[in-house]
């Protein structure tokens, strides 16, 4: 699943001071989430201050266990709504991580009919030819 069509660039995030920690970690094959040490809460997507206590110096990056379950997903089956750099069909899964945060990504070696709500998955990383590092999810033992 999620194979690329050659020659079409993959879109990328705009890195700024708020999300740099997140994408730097991905570059190093780590998944981190923003955490407020004072409120002991995770916030995703990362933001410039803790929405609960409005402080900045209590924000830290905590490494995720990388494990989660598929909370929901969509399957792109026609080119109408899909991004042309991806071979059809491909899934985008919303994964609820053990930390409680939900993130979206593509899947790795999961057949279309295996993609189901509740499937245990874990994160893995891949290097794209354009130098970008992205994460995906593969099956794991529950």
């Amino acid at each position, binding site marked *: 699943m999620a194979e690329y069509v050659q020659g079409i660039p993959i879109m990328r995030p*705009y890195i*700024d*001071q*708020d999300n740099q920690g997140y994408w730097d970690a991905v570059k190093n094959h780590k998944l981190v989430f923003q955490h407020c040490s004072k409120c002991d809460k995770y916030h995703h997507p990362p*933001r*410039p*201050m*803790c*929405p*609960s206590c*409005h402080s*900045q110096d209590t924000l830290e990056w905590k490494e995720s266990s990388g494990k989660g379950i598929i909370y929901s997903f969509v399957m792109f089956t026609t080119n109408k709504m899909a991004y042309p750099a991806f071979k059809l069909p491909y899934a985008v899964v919303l994964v609820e991580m053990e930390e409680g945060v939900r993130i979206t990504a593509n899947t790795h070696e999961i057949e279309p009919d295996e993609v189901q709500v509740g499937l245990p998955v874990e994160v893995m990383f891949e290097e794209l030819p354009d130098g970008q590092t992205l994460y995906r999810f593969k099956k794991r033992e529950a």
Partner: protein
Amino acid sequence: MAIESIKDKTAIVGIGVIDFSTNIGRSEWYSACQCIKLAADDAGLNIYDIDGMVKNIDDGPDPSYVQKGLGIDNLTYHSESHWGTSAMMNAVQGVASGSCNYCVYYQAAHRVSGPEKSISDYRVAREVKDDSLDMIRYDFFSPFGLIGQPGYVAMMYRRYMHETGITPEQLGWIPVVDSENAAKNPNAIFFDKPITIDDYMKSKVIADPIRELDCAPKVDGAIAIIVTTPEKAKSMKQKPVIISSNAAGMAPEGQFHTSYTRDVITELPEMKNMGDELFRIAGIGPKDIKLAMLDDTFTPYVPLQLEALGFCGKGEGAAFIEGGERIRVGGELPINPDGGLIGQGRFDTTRIVEAVRQIRGTSTNQVAGADTILVASGAGGPADGLILRKA
């Protein structure tokens, strides 16, 4: 018959300003959240009580972002506006119509270092040909090399010189007085000390007759202004600043700095329409104004605003500013005691912030008896303005 007039129906109760810079080193999202936090502190308001948000369309993240950044439960009123400080009108209407309690107008724009720059670099690099990014009509100008606002304004200014005889030696008093005022304002980062008219005359002529010092520089900054009802304002931390009037105006054959097809191109009819409405709502006239916060993004617009708003007669704007005496603090009509945009950078909401400080009596360059202040924005295009007064 209108149901109500907005006269005295709303008040400014909090302002938050981030230190301006040419490389702020933060995201616009951060700046938006932080300036609102500062404004809420200033007002003595719990951030979670904010239920309205308005902004200029190009300046900083959408209300839903800022709300998410601040953890606010629910916004019951939010919108965007294009020009000058016209979003203020949305804030006033939101509060006055009973749609929200506390509406914050935020402008978080990193015009030097922010994504706006990245987007334009990106477009140049990739030659993105997306027509939706060029909504404003320059198809009859750009092919001839008439590109950029200084050039657009210069075309009008040359005609203004021809028709009224205004000279650079007269217009130069705007940046000179701005620099004098800016030197007293720590947030006005472009002048440590005042300049002279000679300095102005030596300033580089970039689009003749426009000089470098005729144009406000770009800057990174963020400002938040909180609006509520005068009733709620009574129990808050600061002395409220009453919004006596608020209006906007446009006029036929208008374009952004390029209304060249009008019969007369050396007037600001949008500003005149706006000013007439502003004074009508407030029930006062130009003579009652103690201090004017005018749009000095490009200096030729200052004398034109003085004319359009009735502070002087047609063609008398140049004489009004010459020598600077009448527009300095202590003069007949002080203008921009904070240093204006020439001193602080292109950031329209600074005018409202300075007006609020003047009425509170906390300006770095206080005008005695500044209890009724006019704020004008959007010179050269759709105009908007406020009359603020002491409670």
